[in-house]
């Protein structure tokens, strides 16, 4: 396709529209589509009417005002007062100017204030990481392969050393936290502000006990700071006050210690973080999903003795290995399953080279107690076909419904092609008055009283298939009763205390 052609096609519409005025429409260039699908006749419209905000009444002045009051209220005098405490007058001026510069009406219309369930909790707070939006900071450090130490004793020593260090650190932290809690309690209970630590400082310290040194113990003076408040001369503590404060702190501290010793968590455990840090991969493992290579792990070779599977001797061909895994039955159970080859067909595929013979076998398998399976196997070899079919039949074994473990529920009819099989339940002692193939099926399934009528074709394969279908799809009286909302009682199980033959 030449380059000129599409350009002409593109512009064709306009050329054509101009041409129609002067020339005949037959000379108009046909406008081609860029795709092969059939062109759409007219512009597709959404089948839903577009509801505008105006129609919904969202743009009315009173609605707007209500919304603004609700969502974008002005600062109350109390809030302003609080802000003034926090910010300098210049900052406050800037804040007020900014407030005036932005019209809340504009925010209401143009701003997208989210009120959905998944809206972020903050508008813009970059102090906290949110994994939904924020990129993970890159970690410094490289993955290293762990070197397994041959000397076990040395390893144990080192490990114990590390562990005791971690424990010691943990205990210290806990005690520090308890101290901080005690201080806070004294601070809140005391009317006068005698401890020179703000609430925020205390919070920080509780989060990270290592800050204690920075706050509490100055570098030059090794004295806790809480006793003095030296800014004002009249704020000096008297000796009596200082003693009292000491006592109170001591009491609170004792209380915290008691709490610690009584609580369940008194026993200190290192956190997973600390354990990981000393693990084979170090801290890096905490921040990556990727596991580092473990190096060469000494295997279990020679540690276990291979026990000779006693089944292996009996199943030297290994026919049953797969079946054992699939069914979970033992070899003796599998071998005790009753199976019977019901249909053998010699099939010929006629090609130009001649007939290719193969054999198809249909086998049933059952445990004689309510389970029945049907399998079909094909091969050029008779024994292979039969064996395959048997294995399939054992694999396909499913429970069938039996009334009193001897006959079926009701009369069932099943049809496969031209073969119709009518099975009928019969009283105890009736026996199996059925064709030979079905007799084998009944025997495998554990049915003892049954009558079968086959009014039409007696094709062996279809007979077996139809009977199998019929036995699998028996009606369930309980389900029928539930569907109709009736109570169901088996009279044979009620009269004479159920002692019926």
């Amino acid at each position: 396709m030449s380059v000129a052609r599409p350009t002409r096609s593109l512009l064709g519409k306009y050329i054509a529209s101009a041409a129609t005025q002067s020339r005949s429409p037959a000379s108009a260039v046909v406008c081609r589509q860029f795709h092969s699908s059939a062109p759409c006749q007219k512009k597709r419209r959404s089948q839903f009417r577009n509801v505008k905000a105006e129609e919904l009444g969202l743009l009315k002045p009173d609605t707007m005002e209500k919304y603004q009051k609700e969502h974008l209220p002005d600062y109350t005098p109390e809030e302003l007062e609080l802000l003034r405490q926090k910010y300098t007058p210049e900052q406050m001026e800037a804040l007020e100017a900014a407030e005036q510069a932005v019209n809340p009406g504009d925010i209401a219309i143009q701003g997208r204030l989210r009120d959905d369930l998944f809206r972020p909790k903050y508008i813009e707070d970059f102090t906290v990481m949110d994994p939904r939006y924020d990129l993970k900071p890159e970690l410094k450090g490289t993955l290293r392969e762990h070197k397994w130490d041959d000397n076990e004793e040395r390893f144990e020593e080192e490990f114990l050393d590390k562990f005791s260090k971690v424990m010691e650190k943990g205990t210290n932290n806990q005690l520090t936290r308890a101290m901080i809690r005690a201080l806070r309690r004294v601070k809140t209970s005391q009317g006068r502000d005698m401890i020179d630590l703000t609430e925020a400082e205390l919070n920080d310290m509780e989060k990270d006990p290592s800050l204690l040194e920075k706050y509490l113990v100055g570098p030059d003076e090794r004295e806790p700071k809480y006793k003095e408040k030296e800014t004002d001369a009249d704020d000096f503590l008297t000796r009596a006050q200082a003693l009292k404060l000491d006592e109170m702190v001591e009491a609170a501290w004792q209380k915290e210690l008691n709490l610690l010793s009584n609580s369940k968590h008194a026993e200190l455990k290192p956190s997973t973080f600390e354990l990981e840090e000393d693990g084979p991969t170090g801290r890096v493992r905490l921040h990556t999903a990727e596991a580092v290579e473990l190096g060469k792990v000494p295997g279990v070779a020679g540690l276990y003795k291979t026990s000779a599977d006693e089944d292996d001797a009996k199943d030297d061909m290994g026919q049953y290995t797969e079946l054992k895994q699939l069914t979970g039955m033992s070899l003796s159970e599998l071998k005790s399953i009753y199976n019977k080859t019901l249909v053998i067909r010699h099939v010929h595929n006629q090609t130009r080279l001649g007939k290719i013979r193969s054999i198809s076998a249909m086998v049933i398998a059952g445990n004689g107690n309510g389970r029945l399976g049907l399998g079909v196997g094909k091969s050029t070899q008779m024994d292979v076909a039969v064996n395959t079919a048997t294995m399939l039949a054992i694999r396909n074994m499913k429970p069938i419904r039996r009334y009193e473990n001897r006959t079926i529920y009701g009369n069932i009819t099943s049809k496969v092609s031209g073969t119709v099989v009518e099975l009928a339940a019969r009283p105890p002692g009736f026996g199996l008055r059925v064709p030979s193939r079905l007799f084998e099926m009944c025997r495998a399934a554990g049915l003892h009283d049954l009558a079968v009528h086959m009014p039409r074709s007696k094709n062996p394969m279809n007979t077996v298939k139809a009977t199998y279908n019929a036995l699998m799809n028996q009606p369930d009286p309980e389900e029928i009763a539930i569907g109709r909302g009736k109570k169901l009682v088996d009279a044979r199980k009620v009269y004479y205390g159920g002692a019926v033959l």
Partner: protein
Amino acid sequence: MPSILNVANMASHLRNVSKARLGITSVKNTKYNMRLALALHRSGFISNVYRGGPTPPTLEEMASSPPEVVTNLNAAQMRLWLGMKYWDGKPVLSEVTMISKPKRIMTVGIDQLAKLTRGFSAKLDGGVVQGLNLGECMYVGTDKGVLEAREALARKVGGVLICRAS
């Protein structure tokens, strides 16, 4: 003796409806139809029977409100609305087959009815009728209304064998 034709139409309609998995359907409003529908309702095959106008009632209406009043103005428009039942993905009422036909009405006496309800086939005037199978119900039109075969036997009345349902 009312005609059995409307009942035959109802039977085949119900069979079609259960195949189409409809929740509610309507049949012609006749006395015979209504009695059969009530008998089916007693057996638990259908959930509701409601006589109403040409528009389908809601299930709540069918269950709670009294049937619409029939006057000589709306009598011709009345329908019998039946609620169908389904359980475990299968229809509760799947087969409704007529036994009697308009051309060949089959009546049954008490002794033959007893055989039928026990599951044995019975030889009647019109031909042989198969006995009841598991989960099957047979409906008999008697002078005490349309009854299930077991009900009729309990009351010792025979009558016209209408249909069998399962």
